[in-house]
């Protein structure tokens, strides 16, 4: 479970883009305008029109799909909350991209030694007890940093206080089994450009459900095959005794 989290309140965001700039500076990227998440942009403030904005960045799932699918365990869920990627392990299969329910990991398509790029929730700052770059710069308090527990309570408080203001639920409370990042939205996820059909349960369970049965299935299947091997072979032997010509298989 994440210790820290982020709370984004769509009704308070003014679309100033300060968090984008802070994020780029924090990650030593050339300052640039962001129009979608890509290998050089971990954070995107999307203009939805009518002065409504949404933010896109890694949700830092509690039970991250990316951690579960990576064949070489390049992703780690840290105790603090961030989900980080290890360059020295990755083999570039892109399964994390296929599997992430929020479509967060991006790939360096034009690099010879491509990296997987995504928001790391400022792990280096968190480990020094500093809030993320985006939260510390946000002038309106639309993005706040804190203990996930507290943020969740705060989100519920806002929701209860003024239900009309929001869509009635907290995006990230249950999405993909819950995420460290929580969003209070005034527009539906779909209308906010966020994935709307994210299952409300942790995804790694779906495949683990199947994989964990292998230690049981393999012996049974092996015994079945071995048994068939022996059984049918014996039948041949019996047939042999009964005078049928048996073709020798030593060729």
């Amino acid at each position: 479970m994440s210790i820290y989290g982020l709370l984004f309140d769509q009704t308070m965001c003014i679309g100033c883009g300060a968090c984008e700039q802070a994020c780029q500076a924090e990650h030593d990227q050339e300052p640039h305008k962001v129009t979608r998440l890509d290998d050089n942009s971990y954070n995107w403030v999307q203009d939805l029109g009518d002065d409504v904005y949404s933010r896109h960045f890694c949700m830092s799932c509690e039970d991250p799909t990316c951690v579960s699918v990576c064949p070489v365990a390049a992703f780690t869920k840290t105790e603090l909350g961030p989900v980080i990627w290890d360059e020295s392990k990755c083999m570039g299969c892109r399964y994390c991209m296929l599997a992430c329910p929020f479509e967060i990991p991006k790939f360096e398509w034009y690099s010879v030694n491509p990296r997987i790029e995504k928001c790391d929730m400022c792990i280096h700052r968190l480990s020094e007890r500093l809030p993320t770059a985006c939260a510390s710069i946000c002038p309106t308090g639309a993005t706040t940093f804190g203990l996930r527990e507290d943020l969740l309570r705060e989100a519920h408080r806002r929701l209860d206080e003024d239900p009309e203001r929001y869509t009635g639920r907290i995006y990230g409370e249950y999405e993909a089994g819950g995420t460290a990042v929580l969003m209070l939205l005034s527009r539906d996820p779909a209308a906010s450009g966020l994935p709307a059909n994210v299952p409300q349960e942790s995804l790694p369970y779906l495949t683990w459900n199947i994989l964990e049965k292998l230690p049981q299935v393999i012996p049974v299947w092996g015994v079945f095959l071995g048994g068939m091997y022996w059984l049918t072979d014996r039948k041949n032997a019996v047939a042999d005794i009964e005078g049928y010509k048996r073709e020798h298989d030593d060729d």
Partner: protein
Amino acid sequence: MTKFTIPRITFWRCVTVLLAVLVAGIVVRRFSFGLGSISNLHDGMPWGLWIGFDLLCGVALAAGGFTITAIVFVFHLEKYKVLVRPTILTAFLGYLIVIGALLVDLGRPWNIWHPMIFWNPHSVMFEVGWCVMLYTTVLFLEFLPFVLERFGIHRPLRLWHRYLTPVLVLAGVLLSTMHQSSLGTLYVIAPQKLHALWSTQALPILFFVSAIPLGLAMVSVESYLSLRAFGKRLHPEILRDVGKATAVMLLFYLTIRIEDIIVRGEFGNIFAFDAASWFFLGEFVIGGLVPMFLLFRRDIRENPLALMGTQALVVLGMIFNRMNVAVTAFQLGTGADYIPSWMEFVLSIGMVAIGMILFSYCVRNLPVFEEGPVEDPRPADPIAEMTR
């Protein structure tokens, strides 16, 4: 002494050379400018033609390897023994192609061995990686006797066949069943990203079960191609029985497939007559039901040409199915747009071509068929040959 001769310039030789040059060029480009420079893959479509065709179909088409070895060595139906060697060779080459394709598709292919040291048993891809490594090794060991025999090393071979072959066969069948199904499991983790007609927890079962009729169909088609190319006589009685088995296994698969859709309450989607439903009907009716009904008919099975045509339809149907899971269903589910670039196609075709060239080389030089290496290729009239 072999006489030095200038190779005759034929149409197919030109095509091969052209293809080889193109493939080499594309690979150089890949390792100079990155994957984006040769493919139309993008962040919204991380897997495309290569995973769909080279990996999923490649492995599926190698299914003949485990089906036939299981039939012959596990169930001891020895009359099918003539089919074993060509199918082992095909499976082995198939897996080499899969690895070749992976080396291009992976972003950091030099780390391809990392699953050996960095374990993540929760990852399906981890299982896939291990299956590829282990099963390729098993196939190599199954293939090795061809080479030993060729060089007249017979004594160790006898021991080999007595003690090692049964172990290899059991391990091979186990591994390849796991591998076939795990390729389906890959997609189970993203149910919301696949169109409802393909998005199911049963994918591993479907991939495994469908691999059996596909393997059988592949064996038949290969036999026909070997006849065309090397004048190998077909074994009509055997292929007829293989046809029968294909029909039954197809029925089995199609039943599970449709039941799964009904249980999930998605039956209506089949008759929505939108893109998804047409793609589904193509795979299910044209590549499944039609060949199944044909194979159940005696007159079709007794006519070698019709039999081969029908089996080829089964193969196409299964390729269609795998491509649907990997590309169509994903696109329909996420709205990602993607049409493979011509370089992706060329690379895939190149991989197949390399496989065929290696196959024909092995057939000419190793005892793949009963009578030993094939000397003189190509019968005068393959059709007459087939019905002989």
